[in-house]
């Protein structure tokens, strides 16, 4: 009783066009999308060359040329991607977008609530420190989700004079964690008054953790981040870990939502224009109490995290086992 073309009348072909392909988050997103497509018998072709914006635009045209039934655009620059997206829609190919504003009335926007992500993490920080903290900050400008989390930080600082930003670093040079760790180490030496760290991206967070470990300061500074992965969990539950809390959405779930959304669109069903995925806060204590060691267990213990009830339909199977 699935609507056409999901009633077996043809093999649906979806293109997923990505800006970033490397990194834990991106990998989990991919896995979620793949899994969902598998369950629905959809052919999913992934296009992506890491951080090559013009290639990403090209891929949209390549997908159009291949005659796909729908396109998911995952991250990217508004200016670069809006024209290709509009061109695809003009050719009658529906488009949904994750974390990039394509400025088109017919594009459904999927986004994790980055603002809230920042807020949740900072809320944990303020609770732990009673709104009095000297904060070190890791940030690189110009990356949309980071910019949104940055806005949250600016607001929190404004509202809470006790929260002071002491120093700011950040780099996207690889190896990520090591390069960030070098910077953070220097900052910690120069600013011994820092007693908390806000690094709203887990790759940055790992750099901070590494710096604290190498400086023997794990008991002096706590770290607040965003995003979660198995490795993050391992680092958080380690004895004496300074990683206090992280706010996260489930990237695999977002991947699945993206596929479901485009499927519903292809089937011609109703879909809200904006689909936001709310994050959850995980503190070190929560994880330890629940005895969680990896993402699989995390999903089992916190079902709300796993099942993002977005873009659902009776004819769409969902992943009950929670593989990711």
């Amino acid at each position, binding site marked *: 009783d699935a609507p056409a073309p999901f009633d077996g009348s043809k093999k649906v072909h979806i293109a997923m066009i990505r800006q970033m392909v490397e990194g834990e988050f991106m990998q989990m997103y991919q896995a979620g999308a793949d899994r969902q497509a598998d369950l629905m018998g959809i052919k999913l072709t992934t296009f992506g060359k890491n951080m090559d914006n013009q290639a990403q*635009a090209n891929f949209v045209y390549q997908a159009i040329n291949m005659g796909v039934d729908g396109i998911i655009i995952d991250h990217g620059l508004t*200016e670069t991607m809006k024209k290709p997206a509009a061109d695809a829609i003009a050719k009658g190919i529906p488009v949904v977008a994750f974390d990039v504003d394509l400025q088109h009335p017919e594009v459904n926007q999927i986004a994790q609530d980055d603002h809230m992500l920042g807020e949740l993490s900072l809320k944990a920080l303020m609770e732990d420190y009673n709104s009095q903290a000297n904060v070190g900050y890791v940030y690189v400008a110009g990356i949309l989700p980071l910019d949104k989390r940055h806005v949250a930080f600016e607001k929190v600082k404004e509202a809470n004079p006790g929260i002071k930003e002491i120093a700011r670093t950040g780099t996207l040079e690889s190896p990520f964690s090591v390069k960030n760790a070098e910077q953070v180490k220097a900052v910690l030496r120069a600013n011994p008054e820092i007693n908390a760290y806000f690094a709203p991206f887990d790759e940055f967070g790992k750099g901070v953790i590494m710096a604290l470990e190498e400086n023997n300061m794990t008991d002096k500074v706590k770290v607040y981040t965003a995003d979660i992965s198995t490795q993050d969990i391992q680092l958080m539950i380690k004895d004496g870990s300074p990683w206090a809390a992280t706010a996260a959405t489930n990237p695999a779930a977002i991947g699945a939502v993206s596929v479901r959304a485009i499927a519903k669109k292809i089937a011609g069903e109703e879909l809200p224009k904006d689909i936001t995925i709310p994050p959850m806060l995980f503190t070190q204590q929560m994880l330890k109490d629940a005895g969680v060691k990896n993402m699989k267990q995390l999903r089992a213990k916190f079902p709300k995290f796993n099942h993002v009830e977005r873009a659902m339909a009776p004819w769409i199977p969902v992943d009950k086992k929670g593989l990711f």
Partner: protein
Amino acid sequence: MEKITSFSIKYGFIIVMIASFVGFGLAEPAFWGWHNLFSILLGVTIYGILALGVTFTLVTDGLDLSVGSTAAMSVMMASYFMVVMEMSGIAALVTCLIIGALIGLVNGLLIVKIKIPDLLATLGTMFLIQGLQLIPSGGRSIGTGMMLPNGDEAMGEFTEGFLYLGQGRVFDMIPTPVIFMLALGIVVYVVLEHTRWGRVFYAIGGNAEAARLVGANVDRYRIMAYVLSGLIASFGGVLLAARVGRGDVSSGAGLLLDAVGAALIGFAVLGARKPNAFGTIVGAIFVGMLLNGLTMLNLPYFWQDFIKGAVLVAALAFTFSLAKQR
């Protein structure tokens, strides 16, 4: 036997190229569509253009490692000029080209006058520019509405004409950057193969001292090679900015290696075993075609690097090992 060898050296690469073209099309008929072929060309324009600049420096037996960051610089500057300083598209274009040529001039002077080895000098300017380009915008991407240090919003916009450079289509079909790449390819080809300047460039690459002793102004030519390389790289950057529509900080990253890769694959085309414009363009297109075809076949991204490397090594091993036997 002799004949087979020399035929293989000359046409081996082209044959492999045609074979993969046929293979991809059979596996995925959409590959052969006109539109897709233009997509392939469009996909390689930026680094294909940079590779043409690299070719100049390779011909004079040098190498310009700063092309990637020169292009990135150009992306940021074009955006800054239009978005923050609200200059016109044409003014932004010209200024970027001038900056590119100046970077090339600095490279050339460091190499020719101060006699710093080419790799060292251009690696230095590469880092330098990579940092420099981010300073005006404080490390942030530049787009309309971005916050300026004084709290205002930047109100300038990429002009229509400028965007046309990167996003336009001639006859509603051929993307403008493709036209630029092919035109530039032809110009570089003609200059290198059929003018006396080209002859002198090659002579300098072969034996600079001999070229000096037949009256060539070797220093001037070598500086010129770097200026051209910088100029071409900045033009590539302008096209990239026009395609992306925004001054994105992450622009330059992969460009250098892809451009150098294309120019080097060019060594294997028609068994040239030396840098040449035709080979450079063919090399760039070949890599683009592979990536396009493999993506269509849904090969994960990391296979693409692997295959790019395997092709480069295989093409070179083939050409050079056969040439050695002769």
